[in-house]
């Protein structure tokens, strides 16, 4: 048995190639990177926005800048150095999230409402998300799947996905070849259509139907053929995740 959070973390971990670089944050993405390093990607190199490079985490960080993020790291540097390493084209993956995501993978973490000067709900803003989504080659999103989150149009486009569609990132001046790659939820794994750049379902998690995914998505979502079923977490994955990565169940306890 496993819970949805455990499955999501396993899915994310499987996407990270060995010998690649990933800018991670706290929480589930951090757990995914740790799991990847202990399974198929021992040479995965993790970066933390505040300056930590390739730490050997003794425990889950609470902040992207706390001392765990450079515990036995190879380098403790500046935010600019990490971000410019991304801007230079050295960062393969990043994990992002947001209050809203649209069919093109655009993210909102700034505000809910219509009037910027008087938001219904003020959220933190971009943080480093806009930068990482602009610079890194492949954007991964880990999030729960519900209609309030998966919306046709975000209230505020904080962080760029494919913007208005094919070619829009390049036209805006963003580095070519970058963009949203996968969205991993408690229901499915989504990718983006090669030509339309709209989100589409690639994998359904065990027991989940495409109808369920559509019902929990606030825009029309297609499936890429052949539609696959996510492999459940292996015993080895679960053991490592539970015993080594998150023994205190900070993250997987939320699943």
């Amino acid at each position, binding site marked *: 048995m496993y819970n949805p959070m455990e499955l999501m973390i396993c899915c994310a971990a499987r996407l990270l190639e060995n010998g690649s670089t990933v800018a991670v944050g706290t929480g589930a993405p951090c757990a995914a990177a740790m799991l990847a390093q202990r399974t198929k990607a021992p040479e995965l190199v993790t970066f933390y926005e505040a*300056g930590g490079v390739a730490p050997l985490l003794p425990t889950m960080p*609470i902040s992207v800048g706390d001392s765990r993020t450079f515990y036995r790291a190879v380098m403790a540097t*500046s*935010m*600019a150095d990490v971000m410019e390493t991304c801007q230079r084209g050295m960062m393969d993956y990043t994990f992002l999230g947001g209050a809203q995501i649209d069919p093109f993978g655009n993210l909102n973490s700034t505000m809910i409402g219509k009037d910027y000067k008087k938001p219904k*709900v003020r959220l*933190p803003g*971009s943080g480093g998300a*806009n930068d990482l989504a602009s610079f890194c080659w492949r954007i991964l999103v880990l999030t729960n799947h519900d209609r309030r989150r998966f919306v046709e149009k975000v209230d505020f486009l904080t962080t760029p996905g494919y913007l208005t569609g094919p070619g829009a990132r390049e036209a805006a001046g963003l580095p070519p070849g970058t963009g949203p790659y996968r969205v991993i939820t408690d229901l499915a794994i989504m990718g983006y259509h090669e030509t339309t750049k709209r989100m589409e379902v690639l994998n359904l998690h065990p027991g989940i139907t495409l109808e369920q995914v559509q019902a929990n998505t606030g825009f029309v979502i297609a499936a890429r053929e052949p539609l696959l079923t996510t492999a459940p977490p292996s015993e080895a994955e679960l053991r490592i995740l539970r015993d080594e990565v998150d023994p205190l169940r900070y993250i997987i306890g939320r699943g």
Partner: protein
Amino acid sequence: MTTPLSHGDGPLYADPSANHAREFFRTKPRALVDKLMSVKDAVTCFVHDGDYVAVGGFGADRLSSAVCHEIVRQQKQNLTLSGHTATHDFQILAAGNLTGHGKLIARVDAAYIIGLEARGLSPHARRVMESGEVESTEWSNYVLAARFKAAAMGLSFLPVRSMLGTDTFRHSAAKEILCPFTGDKLLAIPACYPDVGVIHVHEADRFGNCRIRGTTVADPDLARASKKLIVTCERLIPSDDIRSDPTRTVVPFYCVDAVCEVPFGSYPGNMPYEYFSDEEHLRHWLEVENDPVEYKKFIDKYIFGVSDFAEYLQLCGGLPRLQKLRQEEFLLNRGR
């Protein structure tokens, strides 16, 4: 290029002119003189109503909590803040808004505000931002860091490749430009020369030469960019120590206006290699903010009710509590 270049519509809160900054820096004192003073005096002398204030560290990590408390305690008004990874710092300073002490925060360059990362959002900081009494302009973390970098370099702008195509850009004061060599579209961001910078470091001498262990975040650039700089340090060290290993100096004395020795000065935040964050206290602070009446009592006790940061530390459990956090930082409490 067929599409015209666009620019953000947000207001610009700090003069990006390198020439104007040079006129200021021309007059900034350069001699190796003793700058040791209390946090109270430093804030009195160097933070003025209406100032643009930039706080270093990364949210609650290596944060100069002591200076943030003192700014609230002295009821500074009408400040503009740089919201560069502002977490607990923003939360502390927001205590100067909507609590009967006027309006401390008037404007904010927002990249990350009102949140405390995985800990959740600050109810009071949200109330302040949703009240409409604080103006804001949007940026990203790297771009705010790069705005300090532009200033540290003595420039009026730098090009970057983020924010393009987004509402973050639309609500910023950045401008699109074309690279003169490649024709590629880039974002020009204005230099940010804060009136006052505030950083917390591990060690400093009385002249202001500073050492930081671990990540520097944006502090070396912020320190160089700031017209005036207040440094708090865990430990004052002899200047001979600084000179015995000049490779370790990351902020030089000529950037610094005040040096204040504040042991545990990042509490309740994490000070790498010194003490971990006090998550209980931070959780309590977040919880109490849900009720404005309770919250007012809370800040009356912890900020306005004490005369300095040392008294605040006493209220929070004093040395026994700090010893526990030190053990947590060094993982000495594991398996117990």
